[in-house]
């Protein structure tokens, strides 16, 4: 420790004469680097997210058709939209789809993550297998799913040709069930990514804590359920938010798999918005749809997110 010579002069008081400006305890100065660090992101998000959302909100109240038109028409677009069967189907589908998709993907993703975390051989290839659905363009994988799920060409035909005459798996061609077929493919697409997200979190779990649970007599299932999963709860929030966001944005999959059919039984708000904006020249109504999606998102995630964040989280 022969380094007393290295002593640095203490930095001068950052605010000059102490106390001259009073003792603001929440002064910006103290948090300046953190503010500085997030400000580019914050600025970008304020413009690209909130600025554009406001623009959209305005357009939703306007008479815009093919190009933005800033004459306001009040809630006319919303009224017309909610009067349309197509939108009602889309909105209903969104609720079903979001609920099933989020829950099932979380479950499958977690299961895969836990299995992969058992020191399995070939973890990297396996992980890649589970991830690849996200890598391949949905325009084409949607086609593959369409074939697989179509009773004439896919699983049903295969099972029947294999001798199981009564086998039926025709979700995709029936209006009432087509949304479940979409859920299957959507889960398949994102479960791998969610599992990787969970895997990253599992890799950070404190080993000592797991040991303690073992000594407390907890078996693997119990340990995961009561100790490890609560410990990776933040990852659930990440995955949950991500999946809800994806549910709201699911688009290509529906277009490629069912083209929103039969009829428009598998339409979603996102396809509705796209159609209105770019096919039917109803920009105002498209904006109304987009704003409705945002409100829906806010209704399902905001309370949870706010509640989650208000609890003190630091260790």
């Amino acid at each position, binding site marked *: 420790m022969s380094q007393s010579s290295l002593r640095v002069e203490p930095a001068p008081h950052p605010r000059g004469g102490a106390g001259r400006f009073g003792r603001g305890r929440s002064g910006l100065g103290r948090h300046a680097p953190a503010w500085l660090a997030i400000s580019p992101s914050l600025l970008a998000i304020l413009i690209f997210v909130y600025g554009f959302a406001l623009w959209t909100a305005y357009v939703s109240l306007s008479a815009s058709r093919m190009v*933005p038109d800033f004459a306001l028409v009040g809630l006319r677009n919303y009224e017309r939209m909610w009067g349309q*069967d197509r939108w009602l189907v889309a909105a209903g589908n969104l609720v079903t789809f979001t609920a099933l998709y989020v829950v099932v993907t979380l479950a499958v993703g977690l299961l895969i993550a836990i299995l992969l975390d058992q020191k399995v051989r070939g973890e990297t290839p396996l992980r890649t297998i589970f991830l690849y659905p996200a890598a391949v363009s949905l325009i084409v994988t949607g086609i593959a799913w369409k074939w697989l799920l179509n*009773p004439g060409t896919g699983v049903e035909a295969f099972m029947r040709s294999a001798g199981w005459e009564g086998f039926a798996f025709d979700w995709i061609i029936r209006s009432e069930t087509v949304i479940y077929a979409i859920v299957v493919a959507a889960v398949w697409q994102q479960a791998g990514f969610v599992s990787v997200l969970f895997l990253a979190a599992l890799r950070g779990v404190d080993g000592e804590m797991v040991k303690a649970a073992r000594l407390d007599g907890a078996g693997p299932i119990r340990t995961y359920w009561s100790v490890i999963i609560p410990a990776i709860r933040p990852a659930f929030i990440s995955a949950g938010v991500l999946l809800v966001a994806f549910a709201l944005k699911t688009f290509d999959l529906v277009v490629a798999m*069912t083209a929103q059919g039969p009829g428009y039984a598998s339409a979603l708000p996102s396809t509705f918005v796209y159609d209105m904006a770019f096919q039917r020249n*109803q920009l105002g109504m498209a904006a109304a749809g987009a704003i409705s999606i945002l409100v829906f998102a806010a209704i399902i995630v905001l309370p949870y997110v706010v509640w989650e964040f208000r609890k003190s989280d630091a260790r």
Partner: protein
Amino acid sequence: QDNSVSFLHYWTSGGEAAAVAEVRKAFEAQGGVWIDQAVAGGGGDAHDQVLRSRTLAGDAPGAAIPKASDAIEWARAGYIVDLEAVAAENKWDEILPAAFLPTIKLDGRYIAVPLFVHRFDSMWANAKLLADNGLEMPETWAEFNAAADALLAAGITPLAHGGQSWQDEILFEAVAIGVGGAEFFRKAFVELDQDTLRSDTMLAVFDQFRKLRGYVDANFSGRDWNLASAMVANGEAAFQIMGDWAKGEFSAAGLALGQDILCSGAPRDQPGGYAYVVNSLSFFSKQQNNPAASPGQELLAKVLLEPEVQLAANLAKGSVPAVKGLDLSSYDACAIKAAEYLAAADADGTLVPSVQGGTVNIASVRGAVIDTATAFFNSDMSSAEGVETLADALRDATE
């Protein structure tokens, strides 16, 4: 002198791309500089979207291929350049079918230059299947129904169909023209006349449309149109009602048009009628309300309607030329037939713009018809309900 034109389009697949290449070749031969900006997908959805975002961002392409109804809106918004000089010089009013003019001119000015003409209400059939079952190409819906029933009894799927909303709508459109005739069609879908929309004829249209639902196989839902074509080609189904682009699939399968595969217009109970769509190029200006066309744009506009270009491009694409009176001897049997029908229909005034092709009215009308057709076809809605739904939807769509 700026002879360049950036051309935004969605003609990317084999025949389409070859057709575009013909145009390009001619354009470049005359000194044009061609900047290709292809965007495939969704029957032009992606194209429309890109066109929208780029135009509004002040970066409009020199030329694009909006649907006729969109071209009108773009023109109203002040983004379409003025081509009157070229039009006058090349006598466009004379060389184009009169029926097209309302959809490509606004306030007496050309806003679009037609390149390809497609027929939407075509019917295709597997010649061998028909022969085996002792059937002829049906001319009326009654004949069609009889043939279909016979085929059903023989265990053959009468109608190959892809259950996507736009295909449902093509079927509906064909039935509407066939059952109601051209005049009915125009009143209902161009003029949106509520009385016509709620008429008994419309009820009959829906009745026939409902009948067709019984002629398709169980797994039609979501099927691509080309797989439906393959069913006809492979003898799994007898008929397909689909636009004339379907012949590309049949040719690719090695079948001879007019021999292995029979073609005609969809059955009709009224004389005449032809649901067309014209694919036209519109020329955009980067700045709003600045109608001066660039030299490149004028050159391309001129090139488009040159007979050789029209002939070569349409031959490649499988459509028929927009310019009247060309010699089509190099075309296939079905195309020649289609061109004859076209000329005849133009002459007797039964040429009607396809709803599906976006040639009619504003886009929301097209959407409403598609929605109703597909909803009806994929549910057990009654014909009366169908009529009601359609009329209501079209009333709301024009608000």
